[in-house]
């Protein structure tokens, strides 16, 4: 069985994820190929921490991934393509899979081979259940991969440039979102629908005083209480803060997916049966308003 591992690298963490995925693939198959794609403006040193013989592509990340999918499909005879999960990785997977006639599965959690059969797992029903799928024929899957700290040396002799372009859109302009350090913050103040719009300022103040960031559940962003770029969860950002204080969120699993890598999670909810408590280290049954006021008072005083 041949496996190709591919990552669209936005940063150095993606290199580590690529190497983690490569190691996973080596445990499954004897023939493993490595492909990495970088943005056109990336300048390379001659050596890079990637598996030996990694094939390097460069393209404009603001284009779509259709032509890249076509270009890689031309020379790729792999049985399974495992792709590091990120926005462009998912986009590439869809175009590559439909082009090659492979089955495509996005955001997978694991892959195994048992008696020659390939099985893949993925969270379904909005994060509530883990589904296991048996795969026949070619497979393209994007994977939540583990980072590897292994040091590889790949000498870069050749880079293939692909002109991506954007199929279906023209006159493209970009507006960057208000910058926030949600994904890198040490302290997260997360708010849910239990927080009233007119009290938002208090939570913002709390985050600021603690040197942290504010984020929220999907309804809070959809209702315009905080910016969409501050949404936490599987449709938003994944945060790995050392401490997360969660105010008035029920703990729906699509939201929890975004905080599960935080160190200590403390949640405040008026409903003692709220699901959020299952996914918290500490819980308080109480009114968020009283707690935010008292926390601010203590911190300021």
């Amino acid at each position, binding site marked *: 069985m041949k496996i190709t591992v591919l990552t669209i690298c936005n940063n150095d963490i993606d290199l580590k994820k690529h190497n983690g995925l490569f190691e996973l693939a080596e445990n499954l198959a004897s023939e493993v190929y490595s492909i990495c794609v970088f943005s056109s403006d990336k300048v390379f040193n001659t050596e890079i921490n990637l598996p030996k013989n990694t094939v390097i592509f460069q393209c404009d990340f603001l284009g779509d991934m259709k032509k890249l999918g076509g270009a890689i499909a031309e020379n790729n005879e792999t049985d399974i393509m495992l792709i590091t999960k990120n926005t462009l990785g998912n986009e590439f997977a869809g175009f590559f899979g439909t082009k090659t006639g492979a089955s495509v599965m996005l955001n997978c959690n694991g892959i195994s081979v048992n008696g020659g059969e390939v099985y893949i797992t993925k969270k379904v029903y909005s994060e509530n*259940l883990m589904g296991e799928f048996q795969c026949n024929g070619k497979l393209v899957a994007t994977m939540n991969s583990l980072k590897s700290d292994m040091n590889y040396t790949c000498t870069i002799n050749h880079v293939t440039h692909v002109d991506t372009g954007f199929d279906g859109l023209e006159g493209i*302009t970009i507006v960057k979102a208000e910058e926030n350090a949600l994904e890198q913050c040490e302290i997260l103040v997360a708010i849910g629908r239990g927080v009233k719009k007119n009290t938002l300022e208090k939570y913002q103040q709390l985050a600021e005083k603690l040197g942290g960031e504010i984020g929220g559940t999907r309804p809070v962003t959809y209702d315009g209480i905080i910016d969409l770029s501050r949404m936490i969860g599987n449709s938003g950002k994944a945060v790995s803060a050392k401490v997360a204080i969660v105010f008035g969120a029920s703990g729906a699993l699509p939201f929890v997916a975004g905080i599960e890598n935080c160190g200590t999670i403390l949640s405040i909810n008026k409903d003692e049966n709220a699901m959020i*408590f299952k996914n918290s280290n500490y819980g*308080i049954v109480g009114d968020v308003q009283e707690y935010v006021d008292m926390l601010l008072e203590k911190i300021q005083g």
Partner: protein
Amino acid sequence: MKVLVCFKIVKDMDYVIDRDWEIANSSEFELSYVKDVISCFDESALENALRLKDSARLENVQCDITALTIGDGNYDNFVKNLFAVGISEVVQVKGCGELDFQPELVSEIIAKTSVEKFDLILLGNEDSTSNCGITGFHLANKLNVPYILSANEITYNNGELKLTKNIDDGLMFGKITGDCVVSFSNSNNPYLRFSTLRDRLKVSSKTATVVEFTDLNLSNIENNLKLVSLKRENKDLNCEMLVGNLQENVQFIMDNILNEVGK
């Protein structure tokens, strides 16, 4: 301008009780008590289609929206509401059986049902049961038109179709160049507008056009990814409940949680 919007009716996962998730892999897995909703990103696609129609009307351009759903349920309430908010036609494809986790077959059904030419086909990036996120790719591939993912908004402005797309660190704006398939993810207009009782009364005689799956004469599409099991992965962090009064609990947070990070 002719626009097709595809939507799926699903169970509202937020209302499924824990016990039911736990028995998900058994024959008892029963969600009929849970209320039906339009899958969230499809709802965004529908509302954005209506906003496109509103903006086209301002420039005296006619925009007809057809909404298409696949499934055997009684969707009368949804259908009435869609007519009331301004959808011109609703099509329901029946008799397909269980289609979760079969994005290629779903795209084939949409392609075959929408034989009439549409300028735009809108749908959600993924549905909230199978979370596949692949249907749009298959559909665009079958129709041989571009596929634009992760749309946030779409409007008609100065004779042009303007699209806003979510990208990792912001928004991308562009002009749509021709027929295409567009899928919506997080949108500035996520919720379908409400209809008034008067709107509903006006369309009370309208019903969905039913298409039978067997009449579509689809060629056999093999599903190479077969679901073999479903299970709840219970993660329980053994939450310690703080039972003090407000003052005591806040002091605990200060002393034991925030001081971990030097605050």
